[in-house]
């Protein structure tokens, strides 16, 4: 049986949970960095339309987008040692945390590769043709015209992704990792004040997400500062609004 609600506990729990924030942030930070690397590698065959690799990358993305992250955690934790065992790599004694980071990295990698693909596809075809028409090579066009604009387009998508990743890390406790949510479970069990722990926990997640959202909005404005219209819209956007969805596909290139 739960004890009576007591707001005092919320304040008491917050610092206790914050002591484990570093684990949460470690999972988010390292899985996002690895995810960017994976995402870029996975996006390449689709950007370059490489026949077989393109299929593989689609399969990878579909799998990680189409299955619950909870299942992915279990699959990686129990499955990876098996698979690596076949090639005689023993990871069975590795700390759980590494498996958790691997799962979130693989998962974010799938979404990030989609983000990269969509952002590149959203850059106006007409500008790419203009670049070609003045004699720029494919590489010059990519680095000087496509990439800078794709970056601006991808920031709100990336912001959503990081915030989603942060919230997903709360599932890591199912494998016994002591991050904030895991800690809240033990606090709740010890004191029987579950509701208070969840309130404290929500407050922490909310404040961090809110900070991230503001940060990404600022970054989007900064990167897109050439676009007067858009940055003005962003300034007016209220914080209650979710990060703005951007149109994913640019106008068809051919004019006339």
């Amino acid at each position, binding site marked *: 049986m739960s004890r009576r609600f007591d707001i005092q506990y919320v304040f008491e729990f917050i610092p206790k949970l914050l002591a484990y924030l570093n684990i949460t942030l470690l999972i988010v930070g390292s899985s996002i960095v690895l995810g960017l690397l994976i995402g870029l590698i996975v996006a390449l065959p689709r950007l370059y339309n490489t026949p077989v690799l393109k299929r593989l990358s689609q399969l990878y993305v579909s799998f990680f987008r189409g299955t619950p992250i909870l299942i992915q955690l279990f699959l990686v934790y129990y499955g990876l040692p098996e698979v690596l065992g076949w090639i005689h790599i023993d990871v069975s004694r590795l700390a759980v945390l590494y498996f958790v980071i691997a799962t979130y990295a693989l998962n974010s990698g799938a979404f990030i590769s989609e983000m990269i693909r969509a952002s590149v596809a959203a850059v*106006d075809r007409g500008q790419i*043709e203009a670049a070609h028409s*003045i004699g720029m090579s494919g590489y010059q066009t990519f680095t*000087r015209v496509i990439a*800078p604009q794709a970056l601006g387009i991808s920031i709100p998508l990336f912001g959503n992704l990081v915030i989603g990743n942060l919230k997903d890390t709360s599932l890591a406790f199912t494998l016994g990792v002591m991050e904030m949510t895991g800690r809240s479970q033990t606090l709740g069990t010890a004191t029987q004040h579950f509701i208070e722990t969840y309130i404290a926990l929500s407050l922490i997640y909310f404040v961090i997400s809110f900070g991230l959202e503001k940060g990404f909005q600022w970054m989007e404005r900064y990167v897109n500062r*050439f676009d*007067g219209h*858009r940055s003005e819209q962003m300034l007016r956007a209220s914080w209650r609004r979710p990060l703005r969805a951007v149109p994913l596909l640019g106008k068809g290139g051919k*004019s*006339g």
Partner: protein
Amino acid sequence: MIQLSGLSKTFGTQQVLKEIDLTVDKGEVVVILGPSGSGKTTMLRCINYLERPDAGEVRIGHLAVQGKHPSRRDIHQLRQRTAMVFQQYNLFKHRTALENVMEGLTVVQRIPRSEAREISARMLEKVGLGSKLDHYPGQLSGGQQQRVGIARALALNPEVILFDEPTSALDPELVGEVLEVIRRIAREGITMIVVTHEMGFARDVANRVVFMDGGIIVEEGQPEEIFQRPREERTRQFLQRIMPEPNYSI
């Protein structure tokens, strides 16, 4: 001199260009007319290989580029000798007017930045945008953006500038300023091929008018000939549709 010979292009089952032959002399202004879908844009885009023709040849001076799979180097050469002004302006949105014009000079022609800046500022001055160098495309009107597009083409000092309906996307009150700029550079003797529906402009500025329909050149000639005494029935019908009142009586 620009010479197209036997230029053909098929999209799916539709043959859009049927062995087009066209010669444009140095300093000449050629206006291309024709109904929608007649292949005007496709022909223009084949000249700088934004579209690869299935067969035929594009020759500019001594450079001859042939068929569907020319070398990368040939295409690069061709694009260095041509410039295009697009219906939708296609300015680089993340660069200022000045940077838009400089881009080809610094990145492709490898001209030092200071010199490129000087050339670009002069070109923008020429199209009447001397005071807008540091504006981004998003801060310019359609007419101003198109004039930046023209400056970007001019700066490259190409042997020919290709215009694809440069005023079709503009509000009517902005058409005049852009046509005026094109008219001015035409007088400087720059070779131009212009696809347009602006008949008044065609009549004033063109040295030659080419009428296309169904992927072929139906007829070509001096503006007075084409507008007042078209030989072909198809040309007559097209002109009648575009200019219903007989305003060629002068």
